[in-house]
């Protein structure tokens, strides 16, 4: 037994020692904890840790196998995302105890705070005292034992798992119901309570999901094939898109769901052009050797940066929306071009990890597929707050795509219409967010960059918060970004277009003198190297491509990503459909597209007279429309588009 005294050591130092002691198999006592945050975070060894006193937020968070005892209280999020092992808390627990656990046992001897077990997937959370508001909120699996009273709205929007309550069931949450309890279940509860030396109550009530909200009443029907030009709604008044829209709604009686990008014409990077005549750009053969493009992202606060061969990365897209083969092909293609891939929601696969040279691991509110082991093998971590295509809303994955295999990696019931939470359980403000970021850094030994994905909404405020909360970079996503499935109304009508988004973001950072404190990666409907160079000129440190990479890898832009029967095998989980997708072939297609982007960036940078992409500046741009001039503050200089990179010039 080794004692670590937090009156002498910082939590960071103590956690580093704890991990070493874990490897050595040595049990540990933590003295003078004084309710400090992040005690034990990231420990993945089967040792016993006794915290003599109270612990703060995320005690035992992101751990596996370890057994914790806390003699007094814990703050928010005890046992966050714990895989296996246990935590026994002698006193009370703050809000969201057992948040997102994947199999651990958590016992609270006192009372527990609100939203206990939110988005938990497996394991047992047991509270000897009373629970509070919304226990079991959005839980996907596992069980919660409450020996006291349930609190209000117990089981709110749970989609799986069971809640057993010995005391008074005060009030059932939305889509929760009481049901009969089986004798094996009682036996199993007794066995659990015996193991933790807790007297078993006489009887329990059992709360489960009532099954009224797990599936949409009518499935979204496939739409007719409408060419994108008509789909953008420009062709005529009662155009085919409007007709289709009405026809679909006449069957489903609700908002439409579809995939792909926004169809509505919006101010975009194509509305700005280059000041110089670039019609001759790229005449030189060796521009790629001539122009320095290698870019490091994420290292400004001391983490190990992503090393990109050009200021380009892959936009986050989930395994779930896309097939496993597609994610694999993108990982291969990105590695071939020396840039970073991003997992998106829904976890990391071995094949993707092995294929990707550098991989960003994304954490969303449902914590679907999120875990300490994959965090450790990632090259950067990313907290998703929102997405340009549907800012403020969670993802949708229709039942067709929620296969048993996919459900397993996400830790959710198979075959539900998965509507991912739009918020994180433990990030309800900038103040909580800073503690969350610190948890990720603790869990990974302060080695990995931590970024934030922001869909453009309240950008001026959000970007300031991002810089104050210590993120290494932000992935800023405009309204032209795509999605695997979202409400069609939201995709076309909600959000801030990419062009004003970056302008607002940069202005806000200038206002607080923080431009050098965070790096900015722009995405949201960027199509090629021309768009990339414009974004770099405006002030982005790098750009990310999503849809164009998918299209390069075989997408036919039918806008039916949500249906799950993608004919190209990209946006599907059906093995029969996925068979059509040839990852090695598509990886090469993606690679070739990325190389065309590289050439465009080099040729345009050279054409503008620079030998380094970091020398590109706003002064190289003009606005081609009055609207773009108004948005960007660039001089309005309409000119011959063809020569200035709007459509034809400098495309390889």
């Amino acid at each position, binding site marked *: 037994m080794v004692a670590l005294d937090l009156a002498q050591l910082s939590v960071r130092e103590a956690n580093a020692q704890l991990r070493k002691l874990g490897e050595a198999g040595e049990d540990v006592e933590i003295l003078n904890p004084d*309710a400090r945050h992040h005690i034990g975070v990231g420990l993945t060894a089967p040792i016993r840790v006794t915290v003599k006193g109270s612990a703060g937020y995320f005690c035992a968070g992101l751990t596996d196998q370890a057994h914790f005892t806390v003699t007094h209280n814990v703050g928010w999020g005890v046992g966050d995302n714990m895989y296996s092992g246990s935590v026994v808390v002698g006193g009370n627990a703050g809000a969201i105890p057992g948040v997102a656990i994947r199999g651990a046992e958590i016992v609270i001897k006192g009372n527990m705070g609100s*939203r206990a077990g939110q988005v938990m997937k497996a394991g047992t959370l047991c509270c000897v005292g009373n629970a509070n508001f919304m226990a079991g909120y959005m839980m996907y699996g596992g069980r919660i034992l409450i020996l006291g009273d349930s609190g209000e709205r117990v089981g709110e929007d749970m989609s799986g798992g069971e809640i057993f309550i010995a005391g008074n069931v005060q009030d059932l949450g939305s889509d929760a119901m009481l049901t009969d309890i089986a004798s094996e279940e009682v036996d199993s509860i007794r066995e659990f309570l015996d193991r933790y030396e807790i007297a078993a109550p006489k009887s329990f009530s059992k709360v489960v999901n009532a099954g009224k909200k797990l599936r949409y009443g009518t499935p979204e029907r496939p739409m007719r094939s409408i060419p994108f030009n008509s789909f953008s709604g420009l062709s005529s008044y009662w155009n085919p898109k409007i007709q289709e829209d009405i026809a679909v709604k006449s069957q489903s009686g609700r908002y439409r769901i579809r995939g792909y990008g926004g169809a509505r014409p919006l101010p975009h990077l194509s509305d700005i052009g280059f000041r110089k005549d670039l019609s001759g750009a790229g005449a030189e053969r060796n521009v790629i050797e001539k122009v320095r493009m290698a870019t490091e992202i994420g290292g400004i606060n001391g983490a190990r940066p992503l090393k990109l061969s050009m200021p380009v990365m892959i936009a986050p897209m989930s395994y779930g929306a896309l097939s496993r083969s597609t994610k694999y092909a993108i990982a291969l293609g990105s590695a071939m071009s020396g840039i970073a891939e991003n997992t998106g929601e829904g976890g990391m696969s071995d094949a993707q990890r092995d294929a990707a040279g550098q991989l960003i691991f994304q954490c969303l509110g449902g914590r679907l597929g999120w875990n300490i082991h994959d965090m450790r093998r990632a090259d950067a971590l990313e907290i998703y707050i929102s997405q340009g295509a549907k800012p403020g809303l969670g993802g949708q994955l229709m039942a067709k795509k929620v296969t048993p295999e996919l459900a397993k990696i996400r830790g959710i019931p198979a075959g539900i219409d998965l509507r991912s939470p739009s918020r994180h359980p433990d990030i309800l403000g900038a103040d909580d967010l800073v503690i969350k970021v610190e948890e990720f850094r603790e869990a990974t030994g302060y080695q990995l960059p931590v970024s934030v994905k922001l869909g453009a909404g309240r950008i001026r405020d959000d970007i300031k918060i991002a810089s*104050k909360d210590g993120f290494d970079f932000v992935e800023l996503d405009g309204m032209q970004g795509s999605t695997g499935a979202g409400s069609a109304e939201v995709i076309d009508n909600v959000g801030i277009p990419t062009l004003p988004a970056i302008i607002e973001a940069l202005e806000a950072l200038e206002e607080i003198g923080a431009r050098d404190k965070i790096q900015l990666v722009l995405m949201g409907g960027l199509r090629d190297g021309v768009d990339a160079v414009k974004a770099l000129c405006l002030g982005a440190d790098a750009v990310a491509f999503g849809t164009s990479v998918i299209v390069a890898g075989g997408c036919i832009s039918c806008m039916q990503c949500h249906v799950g029967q993608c004919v190209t095998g990209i946006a599907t989980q059906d093995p029969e459909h996925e068979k059509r997708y040839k990852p090695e072939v598509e990886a090469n297609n993606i690679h070739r597209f990325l190389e065309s982007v590289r050439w465009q960036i080099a040729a345009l940078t050279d054409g503008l007279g620079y030998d380094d992409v970091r020398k590109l500046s706003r002064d190289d741009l003009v606005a081609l429309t009055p609207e773009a001039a108004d948005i960007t503050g660039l001089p309005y200089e309409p000119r011959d588009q063809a020569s200035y990179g709007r459509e034809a010039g400098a495309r390889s």
Partner: protein
Amino acid sequence: MCGIAGVMYRGNQAFDTGDALIRMLDGCQHRGPDSTGFALYAPEATGRLKLRFFIDPQNTTDRDSAIAAIRARLVDLGAKIEEEAEAGDNYRVTVHFDGDVQKLSYEMEHAAKVISIGTSLEIVKDIGSAHDVDDRYHVNQFRGTHGLGHVRLATESDVKPEASHPFWATGFADVAIVHNGQITNYWKMRRRLEQREFEFTTDNDSELIAVYLADKLAQGNTLQEALATSIDDLDGTFSFLVSTKDEIGYAKDRLAAKPMIMYEDDDLVAIASEEVSLNRLFPGKALNTREPAPGTYATWSRSI
């Protein structure tokens, strides 16, 4: 977005409330690195009002003329200046005043940047950490009966001293508030109060809560009653602490979205966003704390 803290010692003697709040706020400074503030209460001196004003630190000439203008305005309004001092970027003055405090407050608001007015309340707030503000204003030397503290991460308004917390209930002596959260029916509530000719000096939702509660108190409600209606009337996510010259209280929204934890013993009651702040008052000791339930409120009075 922030961290809050409050402490009240039982009995009527003076305690090191300044030092206690500095320690509590240092414990949760991670929740808000932009600015820090204190609402400090000392036993009142009858008939005397303490006023604090922001003065532009950059310009000495302006500074002198600003102070001269405040002095002149106070005398105009019938206040008799008894004591005055400059502290950091503040001008602090004690006056003897028997008139209508609300009228005096509004008049002074129109003439200068008022931080607080009270018989026992003084607010100290500025950009930087608890220790930064202490270095500038010597908060640690303050002895009193109770107080509130706040660390702020500016999200929707500027990082300026006047946008920092605590907020004084503009127009009402001795009422102060610290708040963590966001009031979503801010404009609706503000318009209602403005129709009744209350004035607001910022667009900050915390000032609204302070004025809302002070108005209820002025109408003869107890602090308990005012807090009870605030939970129904205010929409959004909030955990806030309020203090008057004799009482301290909290209210917490029904969604339980913002943290709050409290500790009580024979000597004091302390409330904070996080237990780590409470533990700063009792290093090395495991505390029996309690988390207030969603949608609840409570008050403590100095006479207990």
